């Protein structure tokens, strides 16, 4: 990727590299854990839907469950991409770092969306309870 003449690439310091390496490792761990949790919760969703009448589970709970599974899966995917991007950058692929930062921005955006939905649903439940 070419750089603009006005802002030449700056060298990263050792501590910044260490921070990026640490973040990459944690992100990979979270992504793998997220994939496992999304799979288990996705399988459990079938059981919950099947037993919803017997166990008195409301449709809003099922809806939040679906949102949760989709959110965890998508976030895990983006974190995995972030981890892979940082590792590629540390392996010498310079343009991989902006891609990794973009993936992390997507994680923030996904979390925003999930939080907005959760707040809206909690608000509705709160209004309904009064």
């Amino acid at each position: 990727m070419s750089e603009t003449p006005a802002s030449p690439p700056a060298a990263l310091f050792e501590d910044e590299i260490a921070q990026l390496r640490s973040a990459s490792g944690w992100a990979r761990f979270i992504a793998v854990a997220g994939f496992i949790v999304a799979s288990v919760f996705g399988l459990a969703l079938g059981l919950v839907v099947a037993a919803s009448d017997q166990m008195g589970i409301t449709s809003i709970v099922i809806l939040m469950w679906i949102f949760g599974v989709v959110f965890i899966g998508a976030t895990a995917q983006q974190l995995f991409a972030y981890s892979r991007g940082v590792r590629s950058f540390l392996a010498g692929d310079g343009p991989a770092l902006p891609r990794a930062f973009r993936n992390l921005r997507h994680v923030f955006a996904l979390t925003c969306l999930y939080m907005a939905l959760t707040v809206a649903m909690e608000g509705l439940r709160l209004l309904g309870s009064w």
Partner: protein
Amino acid sequence: MTSGNPFEPPKTTDLDGVGGAAAAVGTKFTFSAEALQELITAAPVVRWLSRLISVSIAVSLVRAITSLIKSTSAIFTAATLLTTALGAGIWTLVLVVLRRYWTASNHLRPSEPAVRGHVIGAQASYVRLLGILSIIGLALIVLAAALAIPLVGGYLVGRHAVGR
């Protein structure tokens, strides 16, 4: 020039600025303008996330209070208090790190490498915190599954037996 030791602290000349001789004492890895732009673009998203988390904490507190007002069971009251306190505590921790991230990324300028370091540090802190929370969450999920599977299974088997 670096010695190759990953634990070597940064030299004082590294903190003098970027470009020219100062940049040469950094690592071989370069931070492009595109990467910087991505960090700057993320700042408003992080700010919105902080706001939404604050609202979520407030809503959960209001919900807990309404539940407590209506509650007639001591066990339910205790469970509500515990889950609300845990949830609010965890989200407050996330909020603190996010605010640090947002404050640093809000001050990002191409000519200030020290701020860039703060953003990368906050980013690493955020991901590390999520990792630690994931470990706790996984442990809780395993514990809940270990308790719920026999309970729900027994309940369904019992209902089936009574129905027959």
